[in-house]
């Protein structure tokens, strides 16, 4: 109980201490944040050792949070292999990124605020990882969203950063609309057969297994539950059609992009799918939908990365695409492969983002066409970046090779069409990463700032080296075998046919990129002309942002403006002021009777008397 509680609350304590006490001291704030994260990492390691020694397999602790007649909500932890792995990723990668931030944010005025936000984020993220029930998970899910909002908008004076933070929060809020309804529906569905509703994952798992054995599952409702819960995943993991917030989220500081918008938070959606796998996997059509959305996002986002000039946005599209792989793997019924890829991706994508940060720090710009020649100027950054690139491209023996292979293998077995998509995406991945690496690091320097670039300080390159080692070697750690504890009976081993083909495709992509961007090879003019129009579609991101902007302005703002006018003219103008006017008119009409002239009073007495007499006089 103490270890997981400490694991969760150490970063929160750091956050509170920074806000409350060390706000004015930048080094102390950074130290507190790093210390909190280190405590969490140590706790994770301790739990991990307990699991390895076989002392524990599944730990659950909880305390009541809300107890009312008809509703019991608890606050609690559920620790299993997947949770530990995720916790290790969050605390391990997190710690490295915290350390890196000390160098990256050295010139920032309000660094304490930054470290407070980061610690708050770590707390919220660990909450998602550890939560034993969907309401607790939802709580941290929202908190993570809020931290992301604050960190994207860290440079709030910049209108684009302020807008990007808001956009991320709102897109996620729309997704959470479905997620919350899914939780409610699941809660009421679980209340059948004389038992109270629950949102506890273990209890749900037991109940569903029970009902499945008795043949009492309702696939329609269960399908709805799965789709609604998946809405949350689509938002947080930025799957199509709610992917639009993630590229804009690159407005935040680069270490934030590395930690939150690449390695951990956006992977929370995939992790959620692993947690609720027993719910979504109960209905095959839900699984097909999940796999299709994941596969489509993978290739869709990879295509956008082909033409993007901004180094961070290339990596952002790449993140989208890789998350698509993971979601697809979940949909294909391969949660171990998905979690494996999540882990390796966290290492190499954090590495790539931090490398990009190091580059941006040196050349003061994001445009890869203004870089060049950086491998010589920044050898540590350059070589670690190369490792990350190879891992992302899935080249043997780097970690990405093993995890991507597992996913493609699952696709090959269950859905050939998605396997083709996945393999093509692997080629596209290699192409855009090759383009990025060759243009930024190998071509001659294209600007003054690239000419005079210097290697970043050790506090930044140190984490790069550690992450590079992890990215290179994580394939050999036996992560799938560790996870098998949670999900039994999944295929294991390398299929050399699938792996060989994807490797060949990756080499082809890298080669083509080298040919074009290093050797200066140009395709024939006719082909180039034909590529122009699809290129425009790609660089405008298929106009999805424009379409959403139109919907936002015309439908949502239109309705708002219409109702505001309705309020003004109908409710206030007609109903309320109308009533007031009517009362005034009535008053004015009746006022005529009170003229103060004796003659008119006498006249009305006369008329009234006559009328009464006439009425009373009935012969």
């Amino acid at each position, binding site marked *: 109980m103490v270890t997981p509680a400490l694991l969760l609350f150490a970063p929160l304590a750091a956050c509170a201490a920074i806000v409350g006490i060390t706000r004015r001291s930048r080094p102390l704030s950074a130290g507190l944040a790093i210390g909190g994260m280190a405590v969490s990492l140590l706790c994770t390691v301790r739990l991990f050792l307990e699991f390895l020694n076989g002392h524990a397999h599944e730990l659950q602790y909880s305390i*009541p*949070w*809300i*107890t*009312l*007649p*008809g*509703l019991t909500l608890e606050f609690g932890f559920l620790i299993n292999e997947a949770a530990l792995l995720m916790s290790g990723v969050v605390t391990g990668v997190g710690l490295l990124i915290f350390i890196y931030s000390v160098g990256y944010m050295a010139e920032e005025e309000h660094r304490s605020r930054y470290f407070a936000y980061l610690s708050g984020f770590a707390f919220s993220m660990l909450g998602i990882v550890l939560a034993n029930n969907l*309401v607790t998970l*939802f*709580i*941290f899910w*929202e*908190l993570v969203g*809020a931290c992301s*909002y604050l960190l994207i*908008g860290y440079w*709030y*004076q910049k*209108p684009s950063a*302020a*807008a990007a933070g*808001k956009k991320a*929060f*709102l897109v996620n*809020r*729309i997704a959470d*609309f479905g997620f*919350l*309804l899914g939780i*409610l*529906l699941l*809660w*009421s569905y679980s209340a059948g057969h004389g038992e109270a509703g629950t949102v506890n994952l273990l209890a749900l798992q037991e109940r569903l297994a029970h009902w499945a054995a008795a043949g009492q599952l309702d696939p329609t409702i269960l399908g709805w539950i799965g789709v609604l819960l998946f809405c949350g995943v689509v938002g947080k993991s930025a799957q199509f059609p709610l992917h639009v917030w993630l590229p804009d989220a690159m407005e935040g500081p680069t270490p934030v992009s590395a930690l939150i918008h690449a390695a951990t938070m956006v992977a929370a959606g995939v992790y959620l799918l692993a947690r609720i796998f027993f719910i979504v996997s109960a209905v095959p059509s839900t699984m097909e939908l999940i796999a299709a959305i994941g596969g489509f996002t993978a290739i869709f986002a990879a295509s956008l990365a082909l033409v993007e000039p901004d180094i961070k946005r290339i990596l952002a599209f790449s993140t989208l695409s890789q998350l698509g792989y993971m979601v697809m793997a979940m949909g294909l019924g391969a949660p171990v492969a998905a979690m494996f890829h999540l882990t390796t991706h966290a290492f190499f994508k954090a590495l790539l983002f931090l490398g990009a940060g190091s580059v941006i720090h040196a050349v003061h710009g994001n445009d890869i066409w203004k870089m060049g020649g950086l491998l010589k100027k920044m050898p540590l950054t350059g070589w670690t970046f190369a490792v990350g690139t190879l891992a992302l491209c899935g080249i043997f023996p780097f970690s990405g090779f093993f995890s991507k292979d597992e996913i493609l293998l699952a696709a090959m077995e269950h859905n050939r069409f998605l396997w083709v998509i996945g393999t093509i995406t692997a080629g596209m991945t290699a192409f855009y990463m090759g383009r990025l690496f060759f243009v930024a690091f190998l071509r001659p320097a294209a600007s003054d700032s690239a000419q005079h670039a210097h290697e970043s300080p050790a506090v930044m390159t140190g984490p790069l080296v550690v992450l590079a080692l992890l990215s290179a070697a994580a394939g050999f750690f036996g992560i799938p075998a560790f996870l098998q504890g949670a999900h039994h009976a999944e295929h294991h081993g390398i299929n050399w046919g699938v792996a060989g083909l994807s490797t060949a495709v990756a080499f082809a992509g890298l080669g083509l990129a080298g040919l074009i961007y290093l050797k200066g090879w140009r395709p024939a003019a006719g082909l180039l002309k034909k590529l122009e129009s699809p290129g425009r579609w790609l660089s405008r991101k298929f106009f999805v942002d424009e379409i959403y902007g139109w919907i936002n302005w015309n439908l*949502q*703002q239109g*309705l*708002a*403006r219409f*109702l*505001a006018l309705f*309020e003004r003219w109908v*409710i*206030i103008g007609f*109903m*309320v002021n109308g009533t*007031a006017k009517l009362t005034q008119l009535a008053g004015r009409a009746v006022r005529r009777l009170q003229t103060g002239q004796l003659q008119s009073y006498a006249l009305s007495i006369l008329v009234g008397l006559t009328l009464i007499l006439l009425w009373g006089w009935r012969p």
Partner: protein
Amino acid sequence: MMLGPVSWILLAPLIGAALLVCVPSEQVRWVRRIAATATGIPLLLALSLIFRYDPVAAGYQWVDRIPWIPSFGIDYHVGVDGISVVLVLLHAFCAFTGVLVSYRISQRVKEYAIFYLLLIGGGFGVFTSMDLFFFYLFYEMAVIPMFPLIGIWGSKKDRDYATMKLTLYLTAGAVMALIGLLTLYTLSPVKTFDLIALREAFLRQPLPPATQWFLFPFLLFGFGVIAPMWPFHSWSPLGHAAAPSAVSMLHAGVLMKLGSYAILRIALPLMPAGAVDWLPWVAGLACMNILYGGFVAMAQKDAKFVIGYSSSSHMGYVLLGIACLSAIGLNGAVLLMFAHGIMTALAFAAVGHVYDQTHTRILSDWGGLIRQVPFIGVAFAAAALASAGLPGFANFAAELLVFFGAWESYRWAAVAAVFGIVTTAFYMLRAVRTGFYGPLNPKWTGLKDATPFEKIPYLILITVLLVVGCWPQSLLTLIQSGTGPILEIIQQASVGVLP
């Protein structure tokens, strides 16, 4: 006879008002000190009651009773149960922080403080009265001082219209409710205004369902005006906007809760069959509140109007929670009254701080303020995020309960309600973005952030939101002890009505 703590809570602001009459109006410091003491004492007493209230024994505790007009069955009869002890605490927080925020007022301070304290006394009276006559008396006492408070100290632009509209509208609603109350009195077998006695009498000998069906709307819509129930809400955003900040804080924080409190306290237990008939309609109207208010708030440019329409939207959740007629829904509704009251007080205080210096509330005129006034900016952002249902703040826990309750009782309404928090996030984040983020408008480089003293009310309110948000059960146990008996009456009635 010894008076108990509840009476002192009620009397402290009234004594304060009486003392102020004797203080020369130049003695501004003494006026402020007396006002702070007269609201600080109730706050301390209310806090001690929260800790000392016994939820196992439940029922009214610390009851004081003094016969007043025995022939009509009118007594001074006050006490608190699980619901009112929580709302008294809400009122005490809003009142005390409101006084601290009002330290900025410099014009006719003495008169302002007197009206303000009368208003506060009225609020405490409504939440503690166990006698319908006094309930109504205090209800009017809480409404009438709004007229001078907005009319004299309000923002010049729209205060005349706003104050007339607010007072007339609320009085009209109150009169409609009065008709219902007097009819109940004449129909009751016991001829008393005592709420407990009436409740027991109607429990033994319920009114015929047809009578209840006819009479229930008088209380529902009469009190619903102040709730504010759609489409009778239009007095409220304008009223908030025109009022000085501390009055907006009390007005949106506490006064709007009087309506739903009265429905919960009087209409439901006395006419349970009427409630069962009418509340599905209330659920519909509540959804109109939520969605309509949310969308109208999106189109507002004035910060106070955004919060005003947001309040009317979020009071829809309270009405929806009541309409559920289930333990989850009712408890959620009362907890939300508390949470929303604190949050909205925080928001109005922050807006008021900026308005007093910029003299504009148009969000796009502000721009980038968080750089200049970081503390106020953070306070406003906290209120915005709390309102948008960010976990950790009390509003989330309360709204979550309303969702769960509505999901059981009216599933379609739950969908609308959950969508409501999407709209809230839209307008609240837009307000933060337009007013506080972005480049600083060069006009406001002279703006002053809160001084350490001025920070106190904000810190109090934020702390309360966080404590209740992380540990909602602290209040829910109390609330449950109050809503439980009401729910029992409803259940008995629905068993009786439905064959």
